[in-house]
C-alpha cells in the first residue's frame, strides 16, 4: 500500500511538530508528512506544490484561518481532501471550515492512533465527525418536520432521516463506525454512507439555524 501524503497547516510550530511526531510514530499507518505551513499564503503555495492526499487544517489562524486556505485551494486542487484539526474554537469557525469543504473535524486532544485512523479514512473519502460535531449536527437539525418519509428525508437537505439521526447519536456517544454498525445491524459501509450524507447536508444545507446555532454554541 502506497503511503498517504499529508500536509500540516497550523500557526503553532509546537503543534505541528507534535502532530508530525504522532503521524510518523505508527509505520503501519503509512503516513508521510510532505510539508507544513504556518501561514495562509505558505499553506496555499505548499499545498499546490506538493498536492498531498490529506491536509490537516487548523481552524483558527491569523489572516483568515482554515477557511481562507480552503477557499483558495479547493478550486485548483479538487483531489486534495481536508481534515479540520482544532483545539478550541468557536463553533462558527468550525462550521465555516466544514462548509468550506473540509471532510471532517477532530480535536487536537485526539490520540495519535485515532488521528492516523481519521487521516486514512478522510483519504478514502469518509466523513469524520468528532462526538461534539455530531452533537452539534443533532442540535442544529433538531427534530424538524417529523412527517417526512425516510426516502425523502435521505435526499432532503434540511432534515436528517431517522437512520442518520441514529448514526449521529451513536457518534456523539463516542461509538466508532464499527461499533455503530454492530449496534444498528448494518455494515460499516452503510454507516459511512450515512455519515457522508450528513456531512453533505451540513455543507450545503441553507438552513439558517446552522449559522445561528454556530454563533450561539461552541463545539470543542
Amino acid at each position: 500500500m502506497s503511503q498517504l501524503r499529508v500536509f500540516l497547516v497550523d500557526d503553532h510550530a509546537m503543534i505541528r511538530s507534535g502532530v508530525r511526531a504522532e503521524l510518523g510514530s505508527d509505520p503501519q499507518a503509512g503516513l508521510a508528512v510532505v510539508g507544513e505551513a504556518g501561514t495562509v499564503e505558505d499553506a496555499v503555495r505548499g499545498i499546490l506544490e506538493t498536492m498531498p492526499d490529506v491536509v490537516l487544517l487548523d481552524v483558527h489562524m491569523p489572516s483568515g484561518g482554515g477557511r481562507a486556505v480552503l477557499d483558495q485551494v479547493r478550486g485548483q486542487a479538487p483531489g486534495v481532501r481536508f481534515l479540520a484539526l482544532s483545539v478550541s474554537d468557536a463553533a462558527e469557525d468550525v462550521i465555516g471550515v466544514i462548509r468550506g469543504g473540509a471532510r471532517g473535524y477532530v480535536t487536537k486532544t485526539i490520540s495519535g492512533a485515532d488521528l492516523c485512523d481519521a487521516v486514512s479514512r478522510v483519504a478514502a473519502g469518509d466523513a469524520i465527525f468528532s462526538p461534539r460535531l455530531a452533537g452539534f449536527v443533532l442540535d442544529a437539525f433538531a427534530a424538524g418536520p417529523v412527517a417526512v418519509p425516510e426516502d425523502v428525508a435521505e435526499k432532503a437537505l434540511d432534515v436528517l432521516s431517522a437512520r442518520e439521526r441514529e448514526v449521529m447519536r451513536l457518534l456523539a456517544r463516542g461509538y466508532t463506525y464499527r461499533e455503530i454498525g454492530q449496534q444498528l445491524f448494518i455494515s460499516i459501509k452503510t454507516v459511512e454512507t450515512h455519515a457522508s450524507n450528513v456531512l453533505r447536508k451540513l455543507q450545503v444545507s441553507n438552513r439558517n439555524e446552522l449559522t445561528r446555532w454556530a454563533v450561539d454554541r461552541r463545539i470543542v
Partner: protein
Amino acid sequence: MGKHPECPPNLCASPSGGHLMAAWARACDDPWVISPAQVRPPLVRTSDERLVAGVCAAVARHLRLDPVIVRGAFVALAFVGVGVLAYALLWVFLPHADSVPIDSTVGDGRGPTAMATSRLSLEALRDKPSLAILLIGVGGAALLTQVGPFGEIQVLWPLIIVGFGLALIWRQVDDRDLLSRRSLRWRLAAGAAVTVVGLVTVLATLNLLEVTWQSFAATLLILGGVGLATAPWWRRLVAERASERRARIRVEERAEVAAHLHDSVLQTLALIQRHADSPREVNRLARGQERELRSWLYGRPGEDTATFGGALERAVADIEASYDVRVQSVIVGDAPVEDGLSAVLQATHEAMRNAARHAGVQDVSLYAEVEDDGVTVFVRDRGVGFDPDSIADDRRGVRYSIVQRMARHGGSARITSAPGTGTEVELRLSQAAS
C-alpha cells in the same frame, strides 16, 4: 451631662450623651417616629411615591406629615402664585433617591391618619399619574389666567396642553435608564407631541402662527448656514470622540484580559511548574485551566447551574477535577432543572464517578439529549467493565444512586457492561414523568 427635665431618669442615665435625642424621641412617644435612630428622614424624592416629581411626598416624609396635607398646601399656594414657583425650585434642588445612598430604615414616612377617603382617591391618582399632571396643569393655567399677561380665555386650554406635555417629559428625567426602555421612549414621544400641539395651538389662538413660521424658517436658514460652515469641525469632533471611545474600550478590554490571564492562567502555569514531577497533577491542572479558559472565551450564554446543560458541565468539571480522567461531554438541547431532571443529574454524576473510579481508563464519554418528550443520558467508558448480574449488594453506588433513584422519579436506568468491553449507563426520563 445635665439631666433632661422631662425625661424619665432611667433613660437620661444612658452613659453616652450622643443618644439623647433618640432617647428623647422614644420617651415622648411621638406617633410619627418611624425609626428611633433617624430623627428626620432625609429630604429626597423617590419615584414610587410621586404624583408628579415627588416633591410633595419628599417634603411630607421629611416633615412627617401626610402627603395629602402637603399637596393641598401646595395647590392652595399655587393660586397665590408662590406654590408653582416653590414646587419648581424644590424639584430642581431636591436630590433624587437614586442618586443618594438612602438609609433603609427610613420607611415610607406616612403616618397613620384618618383621611381614608382622600387616601383612596390618591391611590387612584397614583395609578394614573397623567391624570394628576393634567389636574396640576389645569391649576397652573388657572393661575396664569389670573396673574399672567394672557388674559384671554382662549389661550387657557392650549397652555394647559403645553403644561401637560412638558410635565410628561420632565417626569421621565428622574428615571435612570432614560432611553433604554420602550415604554419610556413612548411616553417621551407622547409628551413631545402634546407639547408641540399645544404650542401650535397657542400660536394659532394668538394669530401668531404666520409670524412664528416666518421667523422659524429664517432661524432654520441661519442655523443651517452656520451648521454648513462649521460642518468640518463638527465632523472632526464626532470622529475624535468616537476614536477616543474606541481607544478607551480597547484599553479596558486589554486590562480585563490581562487581569483574567494573571488570575487564572499564570497561576496555573506556576502551579504546573511546581508539580512538574507529577504528570497526574500536571494533567489535572492543565485540564481544569483549559476548561475554565474555554468557558471564559467561548462561554455559552446560559452556562449556569440553573439549566440542565450548565449543571451537567459543572458536574463534568467536578469529575475532571477530582479524578484523573477526561470527560468528553456532548450535550444536545437544554432545559431548566426540575425535580426529575435533578435526579437525572445526580445519577449522571454517580455514573461518571463510577467510570472514573473503576473503569481504569482516562476517557469517559457523556452524551445527553434533551428533547420535548424526555431526557436521555449516556455515560460510557471503554474500561475494564464488569458483569452487571454480579453487582455485590454492597455496591450501593449503582443500585441506589443510579437504578433506584431513576426509578423513584419515574425514569429508567440501563447498564450495559461485560468484562473487558467497557460500560455504558443509559438514563432515561420521559417528560410526562418529570
